[in-house]
């Protein structure tokens, strides 16, 4: 299946992927309204240090520890995409404890978790972080 891959040599550290992610998952069709004066809580995060930067988001592992460990059954795999059912999640953070990439994080109010679902469950339809990356440091490919 197609997954998101990053090439840190090409990452500018511009953080646009974080903003595009927050917008794509905001439910709004106006980026300014969605993000103005909002402290964003994106599902993709840039790590940066001394000139090195790269984006981290869910790897959609073939052997997903988060899904196997989820105590509620809120995390499941649908055609390779690891999805969260926020209605079932109780915010125990077991998935945060087991994800080796640190790619699952609390949602904005902390009561449930959030994670990258490759924009399959929002209006965007394809990963907004990839589409908006100005230097092709984030790609969506079959490998």
């Amino acid at each position: 299946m197609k997954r998101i891959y990053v090439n840190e040599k090409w990452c500018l550290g511009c953080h646009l992927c974080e903003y595009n992610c927050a917008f794509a998952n905001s439910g709004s069709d106006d980026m300014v309204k969605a993000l103005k004066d909002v402290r964003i809580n994106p599902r993709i995060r840039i790590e940066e240090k001394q000139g090195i930067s790269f984006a981290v988001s869910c790897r959609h592992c073939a052997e997903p520890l988060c899904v196997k460990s989820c105590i509620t059954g809120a995390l499941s795999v649908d055609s390779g995409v690891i999805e969260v059912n926020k209605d079932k999640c109780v915010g125990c953070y077991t998935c945060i404890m087991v994800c080796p990439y640190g790619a699952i994080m609390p949602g904005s109010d902390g009561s449930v978790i959030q994670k990258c679902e490759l924009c399959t469950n929002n209006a965007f339809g394809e990963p907004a972080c990839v589409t908006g990356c100005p230097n092709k440091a984030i790609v969506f490919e079959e490998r």
Partner: protein
Amino acid sequence: MKYVIIGNSAAAVGCIEGIRSVDKTGTITVISKEPYHVYSRPLISYLLYGKTDEQRMKYRPDSFYEDNGVKALLGVTAEKVDYEQKKVILNNGAQIPFDKLLFATGSEPFVPPMAGLDEVEKKFSFMKLDDAKALQAEINPESRVLIIGAGLIGLKCAEGILQKVKEVTVVDLAPCILPSVLDEEGSEIVQKHIEEQGVKFCLANSVAQFHQNAAILKDGTELAFDLLVVAVGVRPETKLAAAIGCKVNKGILTDAHRATNLADVYAAGDCSESLDITVNQQRVLALLPNAYMQGETAGITMAGGEKRYDKAIPMNAVGFFGLHIVTAGSYDGEAYVVKNGGNYKKMVSKDNLLKGYILIGDVARAGIYTSLIREKTPLDSIDYELIKEKPQLMAFTATERAVKLGGTKIED
């Protein structure tokens, strides 16, 4: 192929999904004492709290048994296993033949002898859905609840009911709460937080005598209560397995494929032991993720596939009244401790490996630490000073990151 699973919780589901990843046609029968579709046991406190309900507690969708071709015998008890004839005998007289058998029998609450306990009219365990329903039916805004046991079960129960009752008091023999999960300093932080919500603690204490609705503690304190919850601990349910000659220590012993010493007989979940790689000892690791993964390994093995479960570690993610705790591994080694406001971090290393950690408050990206323990990552192969500050992939080499994030395949 006829697969039979005794038990119907996380290990059973792991086994079913494991079998079906290899064998789409064999018959699978699940035998469960409880009359319920598979549900998540740890959610019973969230049920009382009101954060979930019986429908959302289901660990798998309503169509799960049908989708996986499973015959679910719910509300019946496996009385005996006839290993020679390869069949399980139920309390209703039915005999269920098997080619491969999984014990996923879980654990039972342990109730230590306490003087006068028989006199207590309203007493509860807190493990199963029926326990939660029974407790829910009895509590009211005037209830005074006494909980014996300041472990995960007792404290999650306290959280679940606190807003619905008049008072909750927790008694434990240990001087600290959550003794099996936290160190002393961490448990003080969590205890203070829980006390601030209104829960009272009597620690390093125990009930000397019950007189109906009063408990006399060892130090002479008298506590009046309306409802008693006994949450002292659990014991692996191993009777059926032991009776046919499975090797049992505290739990049923298995190899890394979850096979017992008897051919065609497997065990997974809280009834069984695993090798805890942080201390290199067989232990019962009674937690849901381990149960699922043990069950999955058993299922794949039973169906003829190849799978090992050899990275077991103790770990817990739990929250109390909004304060999150994540712990993993064991705490014997060199400790690095940071206290910062309400946040607490302890990382324990030994022999160039991370052995364990405790995070209270800020638990972001904790899984990066867990993976260091699970994968036995040599600490001199990463920037340990950097990762001690906070969990981050920056602490790995660029080559390792290219594998983790860039899709670079590891060359054999």
